[in-house]
């Protein structure tokens, strides 16, 4: 196969997606024929070490998770930017090298700032 963009390359992905999804749904539906179904109130309670659950489970959670998600978006975009750069690096030579050093430097400043502000701490 060539490295040119050919839409039919993506057809097997779609077929695989449908087959994998069908495998999941059909297995669960078929299981309905053989599995028992006898629910009662206590069985359907969320597990909390055997005691009746106290309050709703959907409680506020720490901000840290939000900060990590934000940092992830920033750095993941950086990583994705590097993929095309890495693939054509040999063709763009020293210009590409300098550009990427500048790019990483700018990101490193942000990284050091986040570190200094304590965004990477978990205690």
């Amino acid at each position: 196969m060539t490295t040119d963009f050919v839409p039919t390359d993506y057809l097997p992905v779609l077929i695989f997606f449908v087959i994998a999804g069908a495998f999941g749904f059909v297995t669960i539906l078929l299981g309905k024929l053989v599995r028992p179904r006898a629910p009662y109130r206590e069985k359907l309670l969320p597990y909390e070490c055997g005691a009746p659950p106290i309050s709703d489970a959907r409680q506020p959670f720490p901000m840290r998770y939000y900060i990590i998600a934000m940092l992830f978006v920033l750095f993941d975009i950086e990583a994705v930017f590097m993929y095309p750069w890495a693939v054509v690096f040999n063709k763009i030579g020293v210009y590409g090298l300098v550009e990427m050093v500048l790019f990483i430097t700018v990101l490193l400043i942000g990284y050091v700032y986040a570190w200094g502000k304590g965004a990477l701490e978990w205690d």
Partner: protein
Amino acid sequence: MELGTTVLLAVIQIAVVMGVVLLSVAYMTYAERKVLSFMQDRLGPMEVGPWGLLQPIADGLKLFMKEDIIPSGANKIIFAVAPIICLIPALIGFAVVPYSEGFSLLGGTGGTITDLNVGLLYIFAFASVGAYGVILGGWASNSKYALLGGLRSGAQVISYELVIGLSIVGVLLLSESLSLRAITEHQDGGFWHWNLWVQPVAFVTYVIAAVAETNRLPFDMPEAESELVAGFFTEYSGMRFAFFFLAEYANMILVSCLASVLFLGGYEAPAEFLNFVPGFVWLALKTWALLFFFIWIRGTFPRVRFDQLMKFGWKVLIPVALVNILVTAVGVYIVNN
């Protein structure tokens, strides 16, 4: 190639690859129990079949016939769909893994289900979707343990995905392609041409991040049973529980396959005179060696704390991966000029 041929070829290869992956998952659970047992001076499963060889099938049948419990406070639709959201990406990642050299089949080319020119990006895109299944499953359960497990898993998976993403840039600089087949072919010529020797740092960061990404001990925070019962799948039972399990093991096999392709030459033989052995045997051997390594570290290391895990990812692995990219880029530039 005709459209009909493309579809037929794809369906045949998907059936074979999916069969092999599902069977590998089943026997991975068996291998894991056996290897851990031998490391702990036990025998492991011995009852079902000779040496317990039919144990995974018995387990599968048992899970298939178990009651499907949906807790009363759960968000029913999301709860029901989350395991499948987890399962699909874990399976279809295998679509771009080249398992053998190209051979002609039904007038088309076999060896990969589809050789996308953005194969690596495709795998990482779908790996990210898998994290949604875990987070949604944990949230929809309406159980505190499940919610905490889901959140931890989300934070852990995205942090270590970043490390994986950065650690493979070095390989891309060398092979100048995102197609997994091109990356494999770049490493032909035997053992000493593997990327492992030119990218050792990337290999180490990749393997550490892969263990964390698949929620394995010593990084199995999302399901740390001593603190979170079972983490995000605490409330799941029967087949839906099995799908989370299946997805986790399929993901392990996928990251090991990927490590073999990126660093260990994929389906290429380690030496010229071994070329008569078919490619898929080499890929399977390399993948299983890595899977054994996964089980080995599970049997060896204690679990780390969650804050240690996040600190290690963000403060050690990411800077190391970035420096590796810069060093590789300068190296490639010097060699080419």
